[in-house]
C-alpha cells in the first residue's frame, strides 16, 4: 500500500509539472539569486541540426517601445517590424551581426529583414533615443526566453547531451555566458546564474517635468 502511494505521488507530481520528455525548465537568476526575466536560454548540441523552416518572427513597435524587448530567432529567420504607433519610427542597427535601417515608416514595411548571421543585434530608433530592442540570432533551434519569474521552457530537445547557456542584454560578461552540460537523463530543472549590470532607465522625451533655464 505504501509503495503504491509513493509511485502515485510521483506520477501526480510528474503530471503537475507536465515536463515531458525532451523538455527542460531553466531557472535563470542574477548574481544575487533573484529571478532574471528576459534572459535567453539556448541548448546547443554537438550534432548538426537539420535545416528547417524558419517561421517569420515579429518585433512590434507599440507606444514607442520595441515589443518584445528581447527576442530570439534562429539564424536565417526573417523578422518583421510592424509599426503599430500612429507616428513613424526609424528602426536601425549597427550591430556587426546585422546592420540595417528601416527609414521612417508607418505600418509594416514591405519586406521583412533577414538575419543570416548569428550574434546579438541591438535595435534602436533614430528619432526616439530610449527605444531599445535586443534580438539574439542563434544557431541552435532550441531556445527560449525567461518569463517574469526567470523560468524558460526548452522543448523538443534531442536525446543527446546538450550545452545549456544563458544570455542577457545586461550580462556583465557577454562574451562568456554561463553554460552547463545537460543530458536527457538529468533533472528536468536547471538553474543558471548570470551576473548582470544594474538597469539604467533612459528618460522618455515629452514626459519629464519642464526644466527651468539653467
Amino acid at each position, binding site marked *: 500500500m505504501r509503495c503504491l502511494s509513493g509511485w502515485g505521488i510521483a506520477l501526480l507530481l510528474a503530471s503537475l509539472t507536465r515536463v515531458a520528455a525532451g523538455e527542460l525548465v531553466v531557472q535563470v537568476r542574477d548574481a544575487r539569486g533573484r529571478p532574471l526575466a528576459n534572459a535567453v536560454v539556448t541548448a546547443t548540441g554537438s550534432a548538426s541540426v537539420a535545416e528547417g523552416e524558419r517561421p517569420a518572427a515579429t518585433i512590434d513597435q507599440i507606444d514607442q517601445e520595441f515589443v518584445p524587448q528581447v527576442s530570439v530567432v534562429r539564424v536565417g529567420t526573417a523578422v518583421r517590424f510592424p509599426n503599430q504607433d500612429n507616428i513613424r519610427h*526609424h528602426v*536601425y542597427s*549597427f550591430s556587426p551581426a546585422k*546592420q540595417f535601417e528601416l527609414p521612417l515608416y508607418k505600418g509594416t514595411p514591405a519586406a521583412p529583414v533577414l538575419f543570416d548571421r548569428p550574434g546579438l543585434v*541591438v*535595435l*534602436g530608433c*533614430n528619432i526616439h*533615443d530610449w527605444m531599445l530592442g535586443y534580438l539574439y540570432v542563434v544557431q541552435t533551434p532550441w531556445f527560449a526566453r525567461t518569463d517574469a519569474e526567470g523560468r524558460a521552457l526548452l522543448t523538443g530537445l534531442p536525446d543527446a547531451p546538450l550545452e545549456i547557456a544563458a544570455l542577457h542584454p545586461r550580462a556583465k560578461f557577454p562574451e562568456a555566458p554561463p553554460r552547463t552540460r545537460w543530458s536527457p537523463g538529468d533533472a528536468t530543472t536547471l538553474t543558471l546564474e548570470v551576473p548582470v549590470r544594474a538597469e539604467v532607465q533612459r528618460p522618455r522625451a515629452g514626459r519629464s517635468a519642464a526644466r527651468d533655464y539653467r
Partner: protein
Amino acid sequence: MPAAAPHATTADRVRFTSFQARLLTWFLGLFVVVQAAGLYLVGAAQERNALNQIGAALEVGAGVFHRLIDARAERLVEAARLQSADFAFKQACAIGDRATILSVLQNQQSRIGADLMLLADLDYTVVADTLDSLAPGSPLPFSAAIEDALERGEEWTTTIVFLAGRPYQIVVVPLLAPLPTAWIAVGFRLGDPLAAEIRRLTLTHVSLLRRGDAGAWEPFATTLPAVRRAALAPALAGAAWAPDRSVTLPLAGEGFVTLVTSLETGAIPVVAVLQRSLPEALAPYRRLRAVLLGLFAGGVVLSAIAGHRIARLVTRPVLQIAARARRVEAGEYGEPLQIRQQDELGRLATSFNRMVQGLAERDKVRGLLGKVVSPAIAHELLTGEIALGGEEREVTVLFADIRDFTTLSERRSPQEILVLLNSYLTCVTAVVETNGGVVDKYIGDGMMALFGAPLSHPDDASRAVRTAVQMIAAVRAWNRERDPLHPEAIRIGIGIHTGRAVAGNMGSATRLNYTVIGDAVNLASRLEGLSKTYGAAIVVSMATRERAPEFGYREIDRVRVRGREAEVTIFEVLGEPGPASPAE
C-alpha cells in the same frame, strides 16, 4: 622759547619763558600726536580692509572661473551630444572606414567651431583624431578620467589634457548606436583668449599654469603684461601658498594679491592664478590718505595760527597790565587800561584798574595827609600805630604871629586876606621845614612849630632860633617882593621856649591831631605875645637860650606870665653870630 624738546620727562623739565610758546607747544604737540595716531590707525585699517576686500573679490573670481569652465564644458557636451546623435555620423563610425570617420569628424568640428574632435573605441583606442596628435590605434591619454566618470555613474566627462604640447578643455560623450559603441571627444584650446574672457568677468588678472616635468610651474595662458609674466612662475615657486587662500606675491617689484585654484585635470596638474595689483587696489586708499595728510598739514597750520591768536589774547592784556603796574610803581598813574575783552582777562584788567585807582587815591590821601600835617608827621602816622596818647619829651616850641593883623584885615576883603595869609604861611612854613621842624598847626594868622617831635635832634633849640631869625629875614624879603612900593610891611613876632611836654595824638578815635601838650607850650605862646610888648621880634626863654648859645641875646626882663606861677627871664634874639643885624 623753550630750552628743551617739547615732549619732556619729569627729569628733564622744560622751562617756558613765553606763555605763547607753551601754549603753542602743547596745543600743536597734542594735535600732532592725536592726528598721527589717527592717521596711522586709519592707514593700517585701510590696508587690512583693502586686503580683505581683494581676497574676497579673488575668491568670488575663483568661483566665477570654475563656473565658467563648467559652463563651457556643458556647452561642449551639448554640442558633442548633438553631433553624436547624427545618424550619418553613427553610420560612418559603424562602417569603420577610418578616412571617412576622420572627414566626418572634421566636418562636425567645423560645425561647432571646436579645436579638436576625436573618436576612440570602447576600449580607449584612438580611431581618428582631427588634431593628428594621437596615432590611430594608440591608447587614449585621458581614459582614466572616462573610467572615473563611469564609476560615478555620469554620462559625460570633462577634463583638461595636453595634446601636442597644448592644453585643451575636452568633453567625452559616448556614441550611442543605440548602446555606447565608441567615445567621442570634443575640445577647445585653452589660451590667452580664455584668460582674457575670465578677466573681463572677474576684473582680475588670470594665468593658467601647468606643472612641468621638472616640477616647476609653466604658464600657458595669462593676462599679465610681459614683465610680470616672467616673474610669476618663480614667485609661485618661491612663496608658500595654499590653494584657495589669498597671499601677496611680488611680481617685478609690484605686490599682487594672489589666489591659486586647481582645475580638474588628468595626470598633469593645472592651476589658475587670479591676481589683483595691490598698489592699484590701494590707489583710492592712498588718495584718501593723501587727503588726510593734507588735512593734517592744514590742521597743523590752522592750529598754530589759532594757538598764536589765543595766546595773544592772553599775553597782550597781561603785558599791558604788567606795564601799567611798572608805571604805577614809578608813581605815574596815567589813564586806566582799555581792554575790550569780556572774559576773565577783561575782568582782571577791570579789577587791576580799580586797584590802581584805589592806590592812586590812597597816594593822594597820603600826599594830602602830608600837606595837612607835615610829611614827617604823616610818615609817623602812617608807619606808626595810630593810638591816642603820647610820650613826654623835651621839645622846643615856636609860636609866630603877625602884628596888628586885625588892622591889616580891616582894610582888605576876606579873599585878599586869605591869599595874603597863604602866601605868608607858605613862606614861613618852608623855613620851618628846611630847619627840620614840623608845623604843628596854623591858628588864624599864627603858626605853631615844633622842634624835637616827632623826630628829635640834639640841636633842636638852635634850629628853632635859627628858624626864627630866618623867618624874620624871609618875611622881609617877602614884603619887598610882594609890594616894593607900599610901605606897609608885615611884621611878625616870634616866641620860643624849650621844655618838657607830651607829644602825641590828641583828640578822639576818629579825629585826631598830632600835637604837643604841656606848660612849655603855653609859655612859648605867652612869650610870643610879649614880643609886641617889648618891641622885640624874637623872644626866647632862658631854657632856650641855654641850649642855643651861639646866637646873640639881650636880656629883656624877668616876668611872670599869665597862668604861670614862676617867673621867667626872657631874652631878645639879636641875630646870628657875626655882624649884628640891626633889629627893625
